[in-house]
């Protein structure tokens, strides 16, 4: 990004150059936020509802536009037009301010999220640390929302969310370390640069320890994003809607936009750290074509992660609070330690890495995925479609057999 601005600014110096940089960064940031982040957060709500419906044998939203695709726009317009209700007993300034804090923490993460080899708003030297740091600001916004609503459900939801996020920050940060150790840098582009285009050159398959790190990071990121199976802060059967109970209209939409947009942040982080990022083989020397291919690969991997998270949400039940904390402190933190120290030991023992170990880890993962696919196919073949018309006439017979 800086190189591109340098060519654009030519030989401007001093204040003009600084203002030029500032303007360039603001324009590029605005393009990313309004052209990608916000539409993505909207579209993924539609995609999620359609995919759930498919998994649960329902239809899902299919009326607005082709395949119901414009549903997210309709929902957005509806939410903007809704009345913005502030409870009389709420703490007004904090109540109004809280959604913005959440949004700032979420959008600031995009500064360091790469799109391709050259497209990144700023490739900070402390990239991954920066992302972890700014996303922790979200907790303050959630606590603010929970407390200022002056409602027991909201406060409990806010406290639950904050405990969960700060607890799972520890395994998530520890699970970042294996990838950082292998790359020797915190910068996002640097971490991607150390990986290759072929799947077995990804950090994920470096050794069983990094595979463990990948799994732990993905799980902890789900918990930090308040996603099923860790969506206790919004457990509607217990807490109405958690910290968002008293919010209506656009303010409530901001919370949910941050939550759904966060899916992409998680996907992009997993892709960067463990799945090889935007790496593609050097098939052309045309920078535009190369960047487009890299962008396609990066988006493809991130969206595959997003799809996996939606699939999990449609499949898994919610965990209990005590299970949530036990999972974090008794299992994930020690396993994350094992992953970090195992990777470090391996790096000392085999400074150049072991190709056999890489290929073996890769083969095991591929084997598990193939076995899973066959199992799913087997069960799909054996499952019978239920005839609901016969159920309605002979309900007791149909259910007892």
């Amino acid at each position, binding site marked *: 990004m800086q190189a591109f601005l340098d060519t654009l600014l030519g030989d401007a110096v001093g*204040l003009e150059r*600084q203002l030029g940089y500032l303007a360039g960064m603001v324009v590029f940031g605005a393009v990313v936020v309004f052209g990608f982040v916000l539409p993505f957060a909207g579209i993924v709500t539609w995609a999620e509802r359609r995919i759930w419906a498919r998994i649960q044998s329902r239809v899902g939203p299919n009326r607005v536009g082709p395949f119901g695709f414009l549903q997210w726009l309709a929902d957005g317009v509806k939410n903007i037009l809704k009345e913005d209700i502030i409870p009389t007993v709420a703490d007004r300034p904090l109540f109004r301010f809280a959604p913005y804090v959440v949004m700032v923490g979420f959008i600031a993460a995009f500064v360091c999220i790469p799109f391709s080899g050259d497209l990144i708003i700023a490739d900070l030297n402390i990239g991954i640390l920066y992302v972890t*740091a700014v996303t*922790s*600001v979200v907790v303050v916004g959630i*606590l603010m929302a929970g407390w200022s609503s002056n409602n027991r459900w909201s406060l409990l939801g806010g406290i639950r969310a904050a405990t969960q996020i*700060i607890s799972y920050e520890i395994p998530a940060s520890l699970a970042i370390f294996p990838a950082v150790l292998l790359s020797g840098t915190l910068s996002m582009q640097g971490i991607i640069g150390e990986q290759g285009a072929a799947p077995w050159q990804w950090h994920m398959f470096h050794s069983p320890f990094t595979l463990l790190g990948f799994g732990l990071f993905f799980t902890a990121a789900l918990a930090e994003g308040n996603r099923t199976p860790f969506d206790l802060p919004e457990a509607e059967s217990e807490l109405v809607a958690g910290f968002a109970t008293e919010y209506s209209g656009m303010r409530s939409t901001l919370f949910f936009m941050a939550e759904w947009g966060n899916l992409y942040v998680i996907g992009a982080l997993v892709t960067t750290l463990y799945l090889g990022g935007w790496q593609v083989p050097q098939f052309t020397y045309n920078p535009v074509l190369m960047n487009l291919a890299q962008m396609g690969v990066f988006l493809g991997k991130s969206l595959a992660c997003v799809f996996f998270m939606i699939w999990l949400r449609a499949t898994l039940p919610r965990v209990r609070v005590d299970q949530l904390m036990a999972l974090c402190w008794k299992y994930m933190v020690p396993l994350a330690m094992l992953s970090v120290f195992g990777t470090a030991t391996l790096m000392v023992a085999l400074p150049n890495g072991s190709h056999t170990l890489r290929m073996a880890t890769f083969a095991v993962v591929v084997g598990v995925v193939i076995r899973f696919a066959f199992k799913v196919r087997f069960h799909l073949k054996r499952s019978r479609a239920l005839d609901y018309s016969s159920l309605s006439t002979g309900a007791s017979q149909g259910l007892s057999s």
Partner: protein
Amino acid sequence: MQGPDLSVVAFLLLSALTLGGGGGVIFSGNIVYSALSLMVSFLGVAGLYVMLEADFVAGVQVLVYVGGVLVLTLFAVMLTHRIEDIKVSNRGVGKLPGLAAALAMFAGLIAALEVAPWKLPAEGVVREAFPSTQSIGNALLGRYVLPFEVASIVLLSVLVGAVVLSRKEVAEPRVSDDA
């Protein structure tokens, strides 16, 4: 051309943020507002670290102080019943002695600033920004490894102490269920 430097503007804004946040912490009557003003102050300090080319310290500042310390403070404040009615200021000594103590502190800090040997770059030399992460890592695991480890032992004993304090007293051994 010599104009006003944007970095000066940024420095002034960040200082205003830090001082304003600090003022909010002290002068706000509502302790929740004080805690949240602390966040503004922390973020301003993180920005000042960035201006000093200490990018790693800035990241850790936000991660530890905003994401950890402040959230724990907010927990304590928000879970206390009717916290807004509690007067948090210490009225024991009165305003004038307090002001005198603050002024003495201020004079001491200014004197320390004057005495401290500052390492300034030579006039007209523009130093390239360089990553601080690597040098911090080398220093912590090389020259300063002993203080670093001692600090971690202190933290460990704090953790053990917290567990001991928050544990429930078990009066008598539990009778087994299958008796």
